[in-house]
């Protein structure tokens, strides 16, 4: 049995931040499906929003505007108030934010922002933060179990007391005992084919928490980035999010005739992601992102990391400055329901980052708040998780064995259908039915696909039963999570009979504040997901007050 005081599931920005915060107060482990340096946070190309007292009111207003009045105002205020401190912490850890010509901190004005709030490191902010936090994790002596996949939370009575995890390299399944568990395993953008995330980003941690009794909030909301690099539809390399910094520099969207598309730019301010993405979604034919109007030196200065990618994947191979794009799922807004410090409804279970939903994004994302949330909420959850003083709970051996048998039995299934085909069909149905515009037929078709996949999952076979580094096994475990996450997204989206933020329905095209200025919460009742709507905190603003 492996034992640590705090077990963090996930090695991205939120997980690393949680581990560093907890490390002063006991032994800490990170369990991560990939090495922290390979985490999806490295994929975040925009920066971190930060404000002083002067900028605070306008950043708050823009955040709530992007979230279409569904933000938890208390949580949002506290996140934004912490932003200066969080950025200072990152600088102390060695992150080199871009400096302007005078040597002061440079800031960018991104989509949805009426002022320049975003601190950035060219277009590799996520990578710079990951590298800095990883080196801090080494310094703190955190144990990193990389290429381990946590599959199940262990409970003692109703409190979390550990996890079961698969060591992908050996194929062995081990129980971990901990005083607390922090889920920071990322979101579920990979349940769509049009996604900036890989299909392995499918809400593994959300499902563990859900099955252990936690509820999931606002699962219907997913941020679609307007400019994902379009390669071949449905393939693994399709959809890299390249837009933020380039759009801030003035890159323009063109239609197939070469005319500029109106994405809602007003007085020099772009609307939030979800508004731009739905404008682009309506355009018939191909959309390109055009960099030609941007000064060459500025391009190499601000988007140096994107340029080699564009050059290598643009099929004419020459310019890389006029590239085909489409909106892609980027940040999951929904997640495990948590309070202001990351506590879930399950004792000793915490959640942070994209895996969690504290209400700071409301119904739509203000770009730049994601990394801020990852750093800050990871830190808070790490601190809280390491404060548990009660002893280790009792690990139920039969529960561990049951999980071990479930996984080992999968390796023996050599006749049946392929998980890849099912996964693709499901992701396709999610893009068609629950992408940027949601119709009753599309949602119904996706819902039927979920039912079909649930059945078919029992007949999924593995081509190869070897234990070592069996990625097929990992894919099947992921598919199980993907199906249930998709189910939660659909159930929540069907229940919310309005259009708000990133949730846009054809049959309920208007917002309905009277009925739905509330959070959706889905939880398991006798194995079936049930949605309820929960009032926002009393501090919340009505639309009229805010405007």
């Amino acid at each position: 049995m492996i034992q640590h005081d705090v077990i963090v599931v996930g090695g991205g920005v939120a997980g690393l931040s949680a581990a560093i915060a907890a490390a002063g107060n006991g032994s800490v482990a990170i369990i991560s499906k990939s090495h922290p340096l390979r985490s999806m946070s490295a994929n975040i190309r925009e920066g971190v929003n930060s404000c002083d007292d002067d900028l605070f009111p306008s950043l708050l207003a823009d955040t709530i505007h992007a979230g279409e009045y569904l933000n938890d105002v208390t949580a949002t205020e506290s996140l934004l108030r912490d932003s200066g401190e969080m950025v200072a912490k990152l600088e102390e850890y060695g992150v080199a934010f871009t400096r302007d010509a005078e040597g002061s901190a440079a800031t960018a004005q991104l989509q949805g922002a009426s002022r320049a709030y975003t601190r950035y490191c060219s277009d590799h902010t996520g990578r710079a933060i990951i590298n800095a936090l990883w080196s801090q994790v080494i310094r703190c002596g955190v144990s990193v179990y990389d290429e381990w996949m946590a599959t199940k939370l262990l409970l003692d009575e109703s409190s979390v007391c550990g996890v079961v995890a698969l060591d992908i390299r050996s194929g062995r399944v081990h129980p971990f005992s901990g005083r607390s568990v922090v889920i920071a395993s990322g979101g579920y953008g990979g349940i769509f084919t049009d996604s900036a995330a890989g299909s392995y980003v499918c809400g593994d941690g959300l499902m563990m928490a859900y099955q252990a009794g936690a509820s999931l909030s606002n699962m219907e909301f997913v941020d679609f980035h307007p400019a994902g690099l379009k390669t071949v539809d449905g393939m693994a390399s399709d959809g890299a999010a390249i837009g933020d910094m380039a759009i801030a520099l003035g890159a323009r969207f063109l239609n197939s005739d070469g005319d500029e598309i109106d994405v809602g730019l007003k007085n020099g301010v772009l609307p939030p992601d979800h508004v731009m993405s739905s404008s682009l979604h309506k355009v018939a034919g191909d959309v390109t992102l055009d960099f030609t109007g941007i000064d060459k030196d500025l391009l190499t200065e601000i988007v140096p990391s994107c340029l080699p990618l564009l050059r290598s994947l643009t099929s004419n191979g020459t310019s890389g400055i006029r590239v085909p794009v489409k909106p892609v799922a980027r940040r999951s807004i929904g997640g495990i329901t948590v309070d202001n410090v990351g506590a879930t409804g399950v004792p000793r279970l915490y959640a942070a980052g994209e895996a969690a939903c504290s209400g700071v994004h409301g119904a739509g994302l203000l770009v730049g708040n994601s990394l801020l949330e990852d750093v800050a909420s990871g830190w808070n959850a790490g601190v809280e998780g390491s404060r548990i003083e009660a002893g280790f709970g009792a690990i139920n051996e039969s529960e561990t064995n049951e999980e071990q048998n479930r996984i080992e039995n999968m390796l023996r299934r050599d006749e049946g259908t392929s998980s890849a085909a099912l996964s693709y069909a499901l992701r396709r149905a999610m893009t068609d039915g629950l992408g940027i515009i949601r119709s009753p037929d599309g949602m119904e078709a996706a819902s039927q696909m979920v039912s079909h996949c649930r059945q078919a999952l029992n007949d999924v076979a593995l081509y190869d039963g070897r234990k070592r580094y069996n990625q097929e096994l990992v894919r099947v475990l992921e598919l199980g999570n993907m199906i249930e996450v998709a189910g939660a997204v659909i159930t929540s989206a069907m229940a919310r009979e309005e259009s708000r933020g990133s949730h846009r329905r054809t049959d309920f095209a208007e917002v309905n504040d009277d009925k739905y200025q509330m959070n959706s919460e889905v939880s398991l009742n006798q194995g079936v997901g049930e949605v309820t709507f929960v009032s926002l905190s009393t501090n919340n603003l009505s639309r009229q007050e805010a405007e």
Partner: protein
Amino acid sequence: MDSVELVITRYDPEVDDFHKTQTYSIRAVPGMTILDALVQIRDEQDGSLRFRESEPGGWSGSCAVMVNDVPCLASRTLVSRAASNNSAVIAPLRHFPVICDLVVDHSIYLAKIQALEPWVESASAQVPQMSREEYYRLRRTDACALCGICDANSAEFLTNPMYIGAASLLWTYRLTSDSRDSFDRERMEAVLGNGGLWDFSGDTSSEDSCPFAIDPVNQITRLRNAASQNGYAPTN
């Protein structure tokens, strides 16, 4: 372009004595990358093929492999460019121990970085404000994903088992250039021994082959110059 042959290294250390190759025929479409092709093979032909996948864009650096003997990110390499004669050879990243097929073990590689104590550490409580010049020195190195591509190009590994690699030197340069870090001298001295700074030949990856547009040769040359200016010289 339609049918393309990919010759892929297969190796399971528990079963195989030697690396072998297996040839797969794939349906190629314009715009398809080597990563897409590997996924197609795994999903439609041979579920036993092991490789590390990356997210679109390959920022995580997970999918580094050799394509026609050139290290690159599979997710950023077009099949149409790699398979000019309708075939391409795909092998695990050079100089790295193989776990299975195209999956390599980075642990020894990353242990070398960890041994550098790669966190910024200030001896004073007051962290100095970074200047624009300093930011310029640091800005490219922070894009490093430690994907291993520059070191798959380093011939030094063949001749010197003590060689620490271009990435370690790059990270050392980064840390010694950071005014917030107070241990420049110690960091420099740590890479001066056998297999260190003076054994770097410079024929490693150029800016063109680094997927993140870092120019390791340039940065490591600056580290060498700084070492010389501080009175350090090659021992032999």
